């Protein structure tokens, strides 16, 4: 038998447990909702179309880049991850280095948005935001920074409008949706397995019944990748940080972001799941928007591809696949330690991500 617990140690462990519970209770009692606000960097609305809002961040330093950057997150989650809290914010890191920064907020889709397609988001809303910024600044082209599904949006947009995109940065973005499943750790690439376990008809019926792809369903799929963590985070996970105010606040802010998972508009979700996750059309050159194929060879602008080496949601091989398909030699990869979200919110990555993106943008200016 391996279990060799000294009764004295057991009593001490119990005493520590009680102390931590007491401290945690006191901390939780004094915390207010305003303490766990996320995405607090000042910004103002500059353009709106339906539920989509384009924001411009208030500058915090003298501008050092002539071309503004537009951040586009995906529809599976919200852009607030890029600005989780003051000391964990890609947004603040870029602003502090003099980047003129915009972000597009897709809003919270409801049943009425079920008919919106990827064309509406890429050729419609994103295109309108890019044109607005180009017009405001009197520029032919601006820089795009896509995150996750937003990376696919910006990639497709740039491939279709290469003259309007000066630099393309994508982060934790799936390109080859079938790559990275083999020989991977058990918890890697489960979204792909889940998506491919369904038939096209299953997806169609799911959307027909719900209108959209429910955010709760996607949360459940994400939780399958870290099953025990999903089951224990509100007891054991919370207990582990509850006597440390800073850690507790980080935990609560992260949970706030995770809980804010909007529904994915139905028709766009069908394209996302069937065309991309199931049929992998983007790298096959078969993915169409508005009846026109997206040709990745049209990516002729400088491209920076940032991926996480331990990404269990978008395997790094899936992101790296872009290298083979771009039409530019000015292609740079930036592998970062950590997981999918960790790249943006972990303490370790704060000094690396923003600095490297800025350095790359600066080198292209």
């Amino acid at each position, binding site marked *: *038998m391996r279990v060799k617990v000294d009764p004295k140690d057991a009593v001490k*462990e119990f005493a520590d447990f009680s102390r931590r519970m007491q401290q945690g209770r006191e901390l939780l009692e004094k915390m207010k909702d305003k303490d766990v606000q996320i995405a607090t960097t000042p910004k103002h609305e500059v353009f709106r179309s339906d539920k989509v809002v384009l924001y411009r961040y208030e500058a915090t330093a003298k501008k050092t880049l002539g071309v503004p950057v537009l951040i586009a997150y995906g529809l599976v989650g919200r852009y607030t991850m890029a600005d989780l809290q003051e000391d964990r914010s890609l947004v603040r890191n870029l602003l502090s280095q003099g980047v003129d920064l915009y972000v597009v907020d897709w809003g919270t889709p409801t049943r009425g948005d079920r*008919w919106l397609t990827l064309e509406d988001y890429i050729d419609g809303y994103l295109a309108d935001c890019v044109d607005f910024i180009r017009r405001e600044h009197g520029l*032919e082209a601006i820089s795009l920074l896509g995150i996750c599904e937003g990376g696919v949006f910006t990639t497709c947009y740039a491939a279709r409008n290469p003259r309007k995109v000066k630099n393309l940065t994508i982060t934790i973005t799936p390109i080859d949706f079938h790559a990275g499943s083999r020989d991977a750790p*058990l918890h890697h690439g489960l979204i792909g397995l889940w998506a491919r376990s369904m038939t096209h008809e299953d997806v169609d019926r799911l959307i027909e019944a719900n209108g959209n792809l429910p955010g709760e369903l996607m949360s459940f799929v994400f939780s399958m990748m870290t099953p025990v963590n999903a089951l*224990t985070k509100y007891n*054991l996970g919370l207990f582990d940080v509850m006597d440390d105010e800073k850690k507790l606040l980080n935990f609560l802010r992260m949970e706030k972001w995770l809980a804010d998972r909007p529904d994915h508009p139905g028709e766009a979700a069908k394209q996302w799941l069937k065309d991309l996750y199931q049929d992998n059309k983007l790298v096959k050159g078969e993915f169409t928007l508005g009846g026109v194929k997206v040709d990745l060879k049209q990516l002729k602008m400088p491209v920076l591809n940032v991926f996480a080496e331990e990404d269990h949601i978008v395997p790094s091989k899936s992101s790296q696949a872009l290298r083979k398909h771009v039409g530019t030699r000015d292609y740079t990869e930036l592998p970062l330690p950590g997981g999918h979200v960790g790249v943006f919110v972990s303490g370790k990555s704060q000094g690396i991500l923003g600095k490297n993106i800025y350095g790359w943008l600066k080198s292209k200016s």
Partner: protein
Amino acid sequence: MKGFEQGNEWLKFWNENQKSLFQAWAEGKPSPFAMHGEPPPGTEVMSDLMKRSMEQWATAAKKAWTAGGGFDPQAMGKLFDPEEWKRAGSHFDVGLEKLTEGPTYATLWDLDKKMLNVQKLWVERARDVEKYWEVVQGAWQRAVERFTKSISDPKAAPITSGREMLDAWLAVANASLLEMHRSKEFLEAQRRMTRSSTEYRLAEREIAEAFCEMHHIPTRTEMDEIQKSMVELKRELRAMRRSTQAPIKAAPAAKRKAKAKGK
């Protein structure tokens, strides 16, 4: 489940009483619930009617669909057994299948068919949920077995605190659950559960829409159609607006600087 057990007890009690009542009628005796004394007038006629009726039913039951024909006389009994509803398996769906897949006469019994269809899909959904939980339960079972083996291994590093013990258990459980999540068995069980829940929800919508139509309320389908038209109109409007906009040209550098500062 306690509720079902109580339901079954009640059903048994009800059946016994019915049996006694019918037996009494068939034998021309007073009802077991009647007060003591002579049988009331007309008891004999009632008894005769009852006998003939029961003979007719017995003959019909014998001639009822048999295994080859589909309907199993036992199925009817099972159909009303709440324990069977929970189990959501064979007999209940067979009965419903017969009823829902029968011929359609224009709109006659249309709503009833929809209701029966929902029942049928509910059963299928319950069956698939049960199957899903069987797979999940299997993974937990494997985790327990592995953990038990692991803590009994005298060669492994000793566990010296409660927390170490908990962490060891969680690591084993996590690995077992992940293995399960990747397995074909789990993915198929999950797919079937999602699909049958989806079909159930859609069938439920048909009934809700029938109710809406009856009460002059717009249906989900009608709302979807309106919203689709709206999205299409907005799409056209956006394309028209874009086609009428002047092309964006790069401004001279000095003008660009002034504009950027002004913001």
